[in-house]
C-alpha cells in the first residue's frame, strides 16, 4: 500500500467507481486461458464439491461430487478434472520456439506458449495447492489404485501452485489479485477479496454505481460466493437436502433425478462467477501490456518447458516440504524475483515509478543545464563525462555519490554530483556510458536542456547468485543431509475422507 494507492481509493469512494493505479497491464493474459472455479465441502481440508472449468466462455464444464465424503467419488472427480486440465496443458506441448538468448549460450528451444489457469481468488490458489497435495502421491496400482491421470494432475496442480508464489509469474493467477494490481476500489483490501464486489467497483453494471454493485455482490442469494467456500445457508437449506436425496435415491431414475437437481443447484452457484471471470479477463485484455510483461512470460514458458521435461524423465512428485537446501535456494529465487518484478513494473509504468518518486527514491524533472562535451581529465586518460542539472518538484531523498539510471537510456549511468534539496530541487548528474567511444557524444545521447527525464537508483541489472551446498552436503547446522525420497505405501494409501 502507498499514499498514491490510498489516494486512488479515496477518489474511488468519491467518484463511486474504481480508479486506475497503473497505466499499463503488468500481467500476461493468455489468448486461451483456462478458467477454474472450485467449490469445496465446508469443514473438510480439501473435499471437492464441484468445479466449473473450461477455456471457452461459451461452454463451461461442470464437475460435481454427489457424495463429497465418498473416497471413490472424490477420485472420480479428480480424474474428471484431470481430463480437462491435462487435456488443456497438452495443447501447449507441440509448438516450440527458439530460446537461445545471449551470444555465448548454446541454442535452446522451449514451448512457444504455456498454459494459464485463472481462479477467482487467493483461496482458489490454495485449493489448487491442496488438491495437488492430496493427489500427487497416489498410485495407479496396488491396493489403493486410482486413475493414472490423477497423480499426474496432482503434480501439475502443485507445479502451478508453487509457480504462483513466484513474483511476476502468470501461469496461475487469482482474478481478484490481477484486478487489484491495476485498479483501486473504494472499499478495503479485505472486501476486495470478493471478486463480484471488486468487479462491481471496477466495471459496475449499467445503471449502478460501484458501491451499489459491490453491496449487491455481498448478498449470497443474488450473488453466490466465488468459492471455494460455499454460503452456509446454501449448504444448510439447499445442498444438504439434495445430497441426502442423492444418498437415498431409490433406483436409477430417482438417482438420476436427484443428481440432476444437485447439478442444477451447484451450477446455479457457479455460473455467475464463471461470467465474472470472463468479464475480468476482458477488462485485463483491455489494458496495454507493459514492455516487460512478455519477457516475464518467457520465463514462465521456460518453467513450463522445464517441468514437461522433468515429468518426461520420470522425476518423482514434489516433496511434501522443502529440504533445508531447497528452502534456502527457493527463498533466494523468490527474493530476486521480488526485487526484479518491483523494478520492472516501475520501469514499465510511470504511475508505479511515481511511488518511488513519492518516497524520494526516484525523481522526474526537466534538464535545466547541460555540459554535453565535458571531459574528465583527472584520471590517466581523458574521459567523456557530461554534466547535466535536473530541476524537479519531487521530494529528492538521494544522496550525492549514488549512481542512477533513467528508463529511456539503459546503457547510461548517472552519478549524483550534488543535490540542492528544496522546492524545486536541483540535482547535478555526471553521465557515463551510452554516448559512443569518441570524446564527443553521439548526437541525442546526452539529454538536452528542456528534456523531461526520470532518474532512479533502481535497476534490474542481473546480480549473480552465489552457490548453495548440494542437497547431500546439507551442513550439520541444518540437520545434515536429508533422506532421499522413496515413495511409501502411506503416500498412496493416505485416506482421503
Amino acid at each position: 500500500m502507498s499514499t498514491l494507492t490510498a489516494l486512488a481509493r479515496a477518489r474511488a469512494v468519491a467518484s463511486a467507481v474504481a480508479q486506475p493505479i497503473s497505466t499499463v497491464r503488468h500481467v500476461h493474459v493468455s489468448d486461451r486461458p483456462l478458467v477454474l472455479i472450485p467449490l469445496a465441502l465446508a469443514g473438510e481440508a480439501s473435499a471437492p464439491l464441484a468445479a466449473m472449468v473450461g477455456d471457452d466462455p461459451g461452454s463451461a464444464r461442470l464437475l460435481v461430487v454427489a457424495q463429497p465424503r465418498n473416497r471413490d467419488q472424490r477420485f472420480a472427480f479428480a480424474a474428471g478434472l484431470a481430463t480437462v486440465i491435462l487435456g488443456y496443458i497438452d495443447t501447449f506441448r507441440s509448438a516450440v520456439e527458439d530460446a537461445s538468448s545471449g551470444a555465448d549460450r548454446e541454442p535452446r528451444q522451449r514451448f512457444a506458449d504455456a498454459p494459464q489457469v485463472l481462479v477467482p481468488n487467493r483461496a482458489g490458489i490454495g485449493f489448487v495447492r491442496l488438491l495437488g497435495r492430496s493427489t500427487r502421491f497416489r498410485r495407479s496400482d496396488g491396493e489403493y489404485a486410482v486413475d493414472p491421470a490423477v497423480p499426474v494432475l496432482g503434480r501439475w496442480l502443485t507445479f502451478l501452485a508453487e509457480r504462483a508464489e513466484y513474483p511476476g509469474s502468470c501461469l496461475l493467477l487469482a482474478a481478484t489479485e490481477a484486478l487489484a494490481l491495476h485498479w483501486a476500489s473504494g472499499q478495503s483490501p479485505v472486501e476486495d477479496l470478493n471478486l463480484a464486489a471488486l468487479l462491481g467497483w471496477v466495471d459496475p453494471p449499467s445503471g449502478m454505481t460501484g458501491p451499489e454493485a459491490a453491496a449487491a455482490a455481498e448478498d449470497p442469494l443474488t450473488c453466490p460466493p466465488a468459492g471455494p467456500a460455499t454460503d452456509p445457508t446454501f449448504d444448510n437449506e439447499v445442498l444438504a437436502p439434495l445430497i441426502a436425496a442423492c444418498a437415498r435415491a431409490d433406483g436409477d431414475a430417482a438417482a438420476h433425478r436427484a443428481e440432476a437437481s444437485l447439478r442444477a443447484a451447484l451450477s446455479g452457484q457457479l455460473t455467475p462467477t464463471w461470467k465474472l471471470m470472463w468479464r475480468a479477463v476482458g477488462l485485463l485484455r483491455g489494458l496495454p501490456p507493459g514492455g516487460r510483461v512478455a519477457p516475464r512470460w518467457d520465463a514462465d514458458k521456460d518453467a513450463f518447458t522445464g517441468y514437461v521435461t522433468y515429468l518426461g524423465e520420470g522425476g518423482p512428485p514434489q516433496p511434501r516440504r522443502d529440504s533445508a537446501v531447497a528452502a534456502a535456494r527457493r527463498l533466494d529465487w523468490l527474493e530476486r524475483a521480488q526485487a526484479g518484478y518491483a523494478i520492472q513494473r516501475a520501469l514499465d509504468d510511470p504511475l508505479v515509478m511515481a511511488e518511488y518518486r513519492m518516497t524520494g527514491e526516484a525523481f522526474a524533472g526537466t534538464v535545466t543545464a547541460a555540459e554535453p562535451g565535458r571531459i574528465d581529465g583527472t584520471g590517466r586518460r581523458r574521459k567523456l563525462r557530461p554534466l547535466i542539472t535536473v530541476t524537479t518538484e519531487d521530494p529528492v531523498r538521494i544522496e550525492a555519490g549514488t549512481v542512477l539510471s533513467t528508463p529511456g537510456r539503459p546503457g547510461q549511468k548517472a552519478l549524483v554530483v550534488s543535490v540542492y534539496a528544496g522546492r524545486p530541487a536541483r540535482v547535478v548528474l555526471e553521465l557515463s556510458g551510452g554516448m559512443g567511444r569518441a570524446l564527443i557524444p553521439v548526437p541525442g545521447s546526452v539529454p538536452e536542456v528542456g528534456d523531461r527525464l526520470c532518474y532512479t537508483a533502481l535497476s534490474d541489472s542481473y546480480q549473480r547468485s552465489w552457490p548453495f551446498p548440494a542437497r547431500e552436503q546439507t551442513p550439520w547446522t541444518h540437520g545434515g543431509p536429508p533422506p532421499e525420497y522413496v515413495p511409501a505405501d502411506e503416500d498412496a494409501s493416505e485416506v482421503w475422507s
Partner: protein
Amino acid sequence: MDEIERTIERLRAEVRRAAVSGDRTRARAMRAELREAERAWDESLARLEERPPASLGSAPVDQPGPLLPVREQVHQALTLLGTPAAQRLIIAVHEAFFGSPLAAARLTSLRRDEERSFRAAPYSRPYYLCTALTADLLAPARGLLAVSTWPIERRVIGPLSPRVNYLEAAIRVAESLLRMPKPSQAAERLLRRFAANIPGAADGARPKDPHLVVAAAHAELEIHSAEDGSVRREAAARARARLDDAEQLFGSRMRVIPRTGTGA
C-alpha cells in the same frame, strides 16, 4: 413444472433469508413449504418418466433388510464383545462378524423400549439390553449398552473401566477373527483400528497378526485389572444393596449430590 421450479427457487431464497436474520419460526415454516414443493417436483418428474416416485426414507436397495430383530443383532454383537459398548462399536462389530449392517436409527430408542418392557413385565424375556452403570453414582453411563444377564461387575464403569473394556473387546475381536475361516475386510479393518491404539499391538501400519493384538492387550490389562476390579466389586455391592431390580439394570436417577464432590 416451471411453476414448481420457480416456487422452489423462491422458497429456497426465503428460507435462507429467514435463516440469516435469525428468524427461526419463519425459517421453519418456509422450510416445510419448500420440502413440500420439492416433493411435488420429484413426483411430477417421476410421473413424466412413468416410474413410481422415490419413497422417501426407504433403505437403499443394495442393503438387504435385517433377518433378525435389531435387539437380537445388538445382543449378538455385545455377546461377542463381552463388555458394555457404544452404538458405533456395536454397529461396526455386527457388520464385521455378522455381515448385515445395523440401522443406527433403530438403536436410539432401543434402551428405552427395553426398560419399558422390563418395568411392564419383569424378567418375562430371556435377556434385556440394559445400560452400564457409573461406579460412583450408579447412574446410567452415557451411550453404553450392556446385557442384563451379565454380572453387575461387568456393567459397572469406573475411572479405568473404559480402557479395560476397550482392551477386553480388542482381545475378543482378535480371538473371533482367529476363529473365522476367511475374515471379512470389515473384520480386518476393525481389528486394525483397535490395534492402532494399543501400544505394541501394531507392527507397522497394518497388523496382520491377531495374536500380537491379544498379547499386547493382555500386557496392558495387567496394569489396570486389579484396581479396576476392586472399584467394580465395591460399586456392584453398593448397587445390589441400594438399587431395586429395574435400577440395577437401567441405573438410578437419584438426584444425589455426588459422593465424590465437595459440594457447591
